[in-house]
């Protein structure tokens, strides 16, 4: 599938991926994340069930402490 991830085109061999599978594929290891798919918030308890499909626009923001 082809998706947009953080403004950039990305291609995966899989036809679909859960959010957790996608994070693993991309080696995203930060703990504090905010994820949007097609502009809609996907909360942490949905990371194992929410399916990312071809054409989706995915935003992964990671936050670190300090200010």
């Amino acid at each position, binding site marked *: 599938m082809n998706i947009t991830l953080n*403004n950039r085109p990305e291609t995966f061999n899989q036809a679909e991926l859960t959010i957790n599978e996608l994070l693993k594929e991309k080696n995203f290891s930060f703990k504090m*994340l905010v994820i949007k798919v097609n502009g809609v918030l996907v909360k942490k308890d949905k990371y194992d069930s929410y399916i990312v499909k071809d054409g989706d626009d995915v935003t992964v923001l990671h*936050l670190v402490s300090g200010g």
Partner: protein
Amino acid sequence: MTFEEIKSELKNYTVGIAGAGGLGSNCAVALARTGIGRLIICDFDIVTETNLNRQYYFKNQVGIKKVTALKENIQKINPGTEVIINDIKLNESNLVSIFKNCDVIVEAFDLAEMKKMLIETCIEHMPNKPLVIGSGMAGFGNSNSIKTIKNGNIYICGDEMSEVSEDNPPLAPRVGMVANMQANTVLEILLKHE
């Protein structure tokens, strides 16, 4: 644009500042100096001695509420900026009503989970509100790793990596850089003419 033109435009805008620590205090002061019309500043904390290494407070303000001290400091710099203060801990339920009339919201918390809470609440309840986040500014050096990344109406300022810890403290230069970068991003959003 001349400075007079910039000021006359900025006076029509309101910016929400979520947190009055290193990011919030410095960002608010930069916006006030530039001529922003109104600031809505929220924090529940008091000024401590340890804040003075990076936050826009003075020794004689130790022990008073940050929002009170910051309002005082801003009024000494630019009394033309209206400062509305809320001595409150922001959460999912109070944030929307406090910031809903702001043109831009600046996220200026210290803890990552609070940053996440604010972003998630805004995506759910104010999805089109421009949001300027600070993430990754601990330590010193590495100036050029600090950047602004735009994702729709969400802007992230910082290096996205340097987390504050015992051995990687937040210090005036990098915190100030990110705070001013946030202020600069606010100007870019407000003064941009399509």
